[in-house]
């Protein structure tokens, strides 16, 4: 790509073309991030409204769809308060690592076989490392505010995030074992388009690793049921109590951006990423060079959005964990099971080098049964609620 570009602009030196290209890609990714985080904040509030039998934002634009823009403008024009007793430098510094920690992971997310910021050969390690930056920001925010609530929130978030990083990293190791690479594109290409070729169904231990990954990723993103750092009903607002205006907004940018990162990681590491069936690929290739990539992007978005919506629903369904339970789940359940799944996957690969098709189908159908039960239960719940007296669905 860069070679072609430098042919287009022969008067510019090579490094400048490269730098401009990198800059364009970075700006595109940042724009995508903002355009994701904003509307998802509206979507989440609408879904929350539905789940709690209230309306949610529906005034700004049709169905309130540009509420996020109004919120953005409001926060942009709001006075930026810094408490008198706060550590002012640290207070100003805190939003940077939080925001960067989440956005930096976007660089390696593969949207299609071509559409990727940079396919780093240490992609997974890089993602874990970049994600770790968030902790620094949260602790800095909690400590610098000189407020007891924020200190508690910051400390809790640090303890939570570092505890859940262990099972997260260990469950990623299972993927590395199966693919033999840390680069996200290689991980995706070593899976296939059909569900039985995905890593999640390749053996029972990988399935366990997927469950561990999802739980600890949700905990890393500070979402309910693991939202102790900002427990509204206990700590006012946790680590961001003293923040207002744009600085406050950046913390929430990161929180909603995290949703996408979690969904995209789950999709690309365990669920085959952008892989599309060969039949579709042949059909699309016959139409032109662009259509296969459109299909790939759509496939990736579909898989990602399923997890984004599921995590949003989880937040408004489950109660918050207690702090001692939180530590117990991470250290006494997830970590030992992650050890088991690493050794188990290795053993499985030695015993069944070609994989065991029966087990793959068994896992696939048990997953389908769980999804089927979920859908049936959701429909039943909707019917039950409708039959109860004076409840009306408010649009």
């Amino acid at each position, binding site marked *: 790509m*860069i070679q072609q570009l430098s042919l287009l602009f022969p008067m510019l030196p090579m490094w400048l073309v490269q*730098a401009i290209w*990198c*800059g364009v*890609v*970075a700006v595109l990714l940042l724009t995508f991030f903002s355009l994701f985080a904003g509307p998802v904040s509206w979507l989440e509030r609408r879904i929350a409204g539905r789940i709690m039998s209230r309306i949610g934002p529906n005034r700004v634009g049709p169905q309130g769809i540009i509420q996020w823009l109004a919120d953005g403008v409001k926060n*942009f024009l*709001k006075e*930026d*308060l810094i*408490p*008198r007793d706060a550590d002012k430098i640290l207070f100003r510094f805190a*939003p*940077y690592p939080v*925001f*960067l920690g989440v*956005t*930096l992971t*976007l*660089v390696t997310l593969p949207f299609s076989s071509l559409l990727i910021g*940079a*396919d780093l*050969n240490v992609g*997974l*390690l890089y993602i874990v490392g970049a994600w770790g930056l968030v902790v620094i920001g949260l602790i800095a925010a909690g*400590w610098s*505010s*000189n*407020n*007891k*609530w924020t*200190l508690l929130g910051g400390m809790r978030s640090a*303890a939570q995030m570092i*505890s859940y990083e*262990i099972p997260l*990293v*260990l469950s990623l*190791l299972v993927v*590395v*074992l*199966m*693919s*033999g690479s840390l680069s996200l594109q290689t991980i995706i290409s070593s899976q296939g388009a059909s569900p039985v070729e995905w890593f999640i169904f390749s053996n029972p231990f990988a399935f366990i690793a997927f469950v561990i990954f999802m739980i600890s990723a949700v905990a890393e993103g500070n979402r309910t049921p693991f939202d102790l750092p900002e427990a509204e009903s206990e700590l006012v607002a946790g680590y961001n*109590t*003293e923040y207002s205006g*744009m600085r406050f907004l950046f913390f929430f940018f990161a929180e909603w951006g995290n949703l996408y990162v979690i969904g995209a990681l789950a999709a690309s590491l365990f669920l085959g990423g952008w892989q599309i069936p060969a039949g579709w690929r042949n059909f699309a290739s016959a139409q032109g060079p662009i259509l296969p990539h459109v299909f790939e992007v759509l496939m990736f978005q579909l898989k990602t959005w399923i997890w984004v919506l599921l995590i949003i629903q989880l937040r408004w369904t489950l109660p918050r964990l207690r702090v*001692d339970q939180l*530590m*117990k789940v991470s*250290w*006494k359940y997830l*970590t*030992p099971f992650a050890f088991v799944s*690493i*050794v188990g996957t*290795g*053993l499985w*690969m*030695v015993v069944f*080098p070609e994989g065991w098709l029966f087990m793959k189908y068994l896992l696939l159908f048990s997953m389908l049964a769980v999804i089927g039960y979920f859908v049936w239960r959701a429909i039943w719940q909707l019917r039950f609620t409708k039959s109860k007296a004076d409840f009306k669905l408010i649009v």
Partner: protein
Amino acid sequence: MLNDFALVLIFAVLGILFIFGSLLAGSFLRPKNPNPVKSEIYECGEPSKGSGWINFNMRFYLIALIFVIFDVEAALMFPVAAVFKKWLLSGNGILALAEIGLFVLILAAGLLYVWVKKDLDWAKKVVSD
């Protein structure tokens, strides 16, 4: 490859500029009239007593210590896991599995030690002398 890392660097710089720029642009537009009450610390409306910068509960540091050990060991396992498949294809699968098993065993022994020492329990019993 270096080009890819250049993208990461440029992305980080642009991310910092994005935050800094929007804060700077906002500072020309937003009001700024602080007063003593506004710049107080918010602790549910009560005047706050003492500083928030206090010695904090030891448990958090214990967890951090355990984390450091486990994270370093997990990071060391990434290269081993990355070549596992290559070894498997070249017929050394059992040896590679034994190595990974040994590594996990050491990690698990560490976890067991911390567990038995009750450093993983959040609610601690205070034993009086």
